């Protein structure tokens, strides 16, 4: 409380032009009165994706090259209790005009007052614990043209209030504008057949993208346990893709329904073992369903007398909808190996396979990265499918195995 009172005294004195009489040691002492800290950072990257197999459709290319830019700026004032942050994102892609896109990942004002934190603007929020699927993560829309792993997100407009109670953190979100999922275009690889027409999204709600979504989350850490409980009420981030009847089924139209989704995420940390679970109950007008993903990551530190750590990941995916599961993870097993070299260039690698126990389809993924010198990083991504079945979502990617190489300059 003393800190807030002092902050208020400083901002008042700024208004009146008087110099604040600061008698105690403050972290921002010496930085001047108004701005505590502000900084530019970000990255620029070039990447290539090479597809060794011939494309399914003649419009698709064997490779694509692209350039991405993401500057970030923030400034803190009011003893660090207020912040403005902005971070635009831009990608140019040589093959797919849908992958050439711009977004605002961050543009917000944030204020802290004691146990309360308020935020207004655009931001990205992550929920969850598992590695091979982010089931409970729902605030932001997936920027699918960026990466099929679903980890890249579009900036979400929001009003957000956090309350830091003695018994966990409460987070309330009011989301006034819906972001549609991005999909590869006609010339892009890793797309559906037929392609998704993003110009004509369908909504269950008459308010369409103006529907106001609400979300509430409580999270707490209790000894070895980290637990999150959340409820989301609003427009589903994951669309159903339906053939466009008016076009004679030449395109797929995304349909965004209204959902009420209650979720649990939990992790138990027992020494070198991390036990993880994410579960949802999704209530909507088409089909209520339960889905979960759970498993463990176990790390061996300093394997074979080296400095490297080796982790084994095992996760099981279930979706009550079975064959109709929109993400295709109805009964799948993920087995992965994570190598952390603990060396100066920060070398890391993650290799894994996702196995569909119903169709026996396999999706393989190898990611590796390391620093080059002080400011550059090199990342590799190898993805492949085998044994894909026509009724599996992976069937769309049957000819789209690829090797991605990305070189990034951080500043």
């Amino acid at each position, binding site marked *: 409380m*003393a*800190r807030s009172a*002092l902050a208020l005294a400083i901002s008042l004195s700024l208004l009146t032009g008087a110099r604040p009489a600061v008698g*105690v*040691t*403050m*972290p921002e*002492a010496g930085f001047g009165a108004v701005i505590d*800290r502000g*900084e530019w*950072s970000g*990255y620029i990257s070039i990447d290539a994706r090479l597809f060794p197999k011939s494309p399914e459709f003649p419009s698709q290319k064997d490779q694509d090259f692209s350039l991405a830019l993401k500057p970030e700026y*923030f400034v*803190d004032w009011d003893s660090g209790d207020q*912040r403005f*942050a902005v971070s635009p994102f831009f990608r140019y892609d040589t093959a797919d005009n849908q992958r050439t896109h711009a977004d605002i990942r961050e543009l917000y004002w*944030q204020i802290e007052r004691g*146990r309360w*934190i308020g935020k207004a603007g655009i931001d*990205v*929020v*992550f929920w*969850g*614990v598992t590695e091979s699927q982010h089931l409970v993560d729902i605030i932001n829309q997936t920027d699918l043209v960026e990466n099929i792993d679903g*980890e890249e997100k579009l900036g979400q407009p929001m009003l957000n209030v*956090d309350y*830091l109670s003695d018994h966990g*953190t409460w*987070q309330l979100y009011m989301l006034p504008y819906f972001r549609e999922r991005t999909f590869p275009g006609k010339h892009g690889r890793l797309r559906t057949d037929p392609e998704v027409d993003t110009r004509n999204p369908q909504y269950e709600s008459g308010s369409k993208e103006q529907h106001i979504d609400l979300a509430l989350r409580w*999270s707490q*850490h209790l000894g070895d346990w*980290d637990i999150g409980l959340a409820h989301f009420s609003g427009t589903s981030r994951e669309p159903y893709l339906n053939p466009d009847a008016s076009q004679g089924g030449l395109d797929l139209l995304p349909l965004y329904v209204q959902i009420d989704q209650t979720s649990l995420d939990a*992790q138990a*940390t027992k*020494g*070198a*073992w*991390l036990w993880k679970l994410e579960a949802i109950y999704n209530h909507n007008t088409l089909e209520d369903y339960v889905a979960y993903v759970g498993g463990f990551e176990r*790390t061996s*530190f*300093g394997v074979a007398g080296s*400095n490297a*750590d080796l982790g084994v990941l095992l996760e099981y995916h279930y979706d009550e909808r079975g064959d109709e599961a929109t993400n295709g993870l109805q009964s799948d097993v993920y087995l992965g190996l994570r190598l952390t070299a*603990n*060396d*100066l*260039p*920060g070398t890391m690698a993650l290799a894994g396979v996702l196995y569909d126990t119903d169709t026996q389809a396999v999706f393989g993924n190898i990611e590796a990265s390391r*620093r080059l010198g*002080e*400011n550059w*990083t090199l990342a590799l991504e190898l993805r492949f499918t085998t044994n894909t079945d026509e009724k599996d979502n992976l069937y769309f990617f049957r000819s789209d195995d690829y090797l991605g190489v990305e070189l*990034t300059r*951080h*500043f």
Partner: protein
Amino acid sequence: MKRKLSGNTAHRPAGVNNYLPVLAALVLSLFYHPAVLADADVEKGMAIAIEADRRDSGFGDSTVDLTMLIASASGDIVTREMRQMVLEVANDGDKSIMVFDRPRDLKGTAILTFTHKSGDDEQWLYLPALKRVKRISSADKSGPFMGSEFAYEDLSSQEVEKYRYRYLRDDAIDGTPCFVVERVPVDKNSGYTRQLTWVDQDEYRLQRVDYYDRKDSLLKSMRPVGYQQYLDRYWRPSEMVMSNHQTGKSTTLKFGNYQFRTGARDADFTPSAIARIR
């Protein structure tokens, strides 16, 4: 800890008069017994650790800027920059946050640690690219920090209860009289069988640590230098040099801009709070 210190006298039967310890000491000095002497060294080692801890307690919270200069195998110097915030916790280990500024690809990455006097520490990692806070295993004590000669356990909060102690001898470092105390990590995940610490007799500041690896060979030595006193009480070094005797490599950790009692609160040291740090 007081219980442990008085442990040797706690079993004295009621009614025995006060001269008994003196008498016992006389008898023992006549019949020299190394185990008893060693026991006294354990007590003295423990007492030194407790006194050093007592002198450093009450600082409340602090922040410091860190620069790590890592000599690579090729002889190049690689620089890493971090900020650290520490919150003193009554009757338990400190809470701390380490935020990375350089290299730039790690900018904004933060590690939150709850140190515990007994049992496993708790740790969370914030990954700014995904805006994800991850609870991570704290079992990785011995791994190198950022590819440097410092291990994670060398940089963690040094709680009294994390070691067993034995006073060995008096010695001098650069003319400063020191106690040499051997300490053995309690945690079985530690990368060390033991450490020799040099603690100066005037201010109970750490002046040197020798680290012995799992084969009990001398692995590294650490020298804190440039001590300055803050708030008229708390001594902090301006530099720590860690030299690896087995590889010949070394890492220098520089400290700057120490701040104390900044008004940090418990709510600033939570998993959700590290996602807000820049």
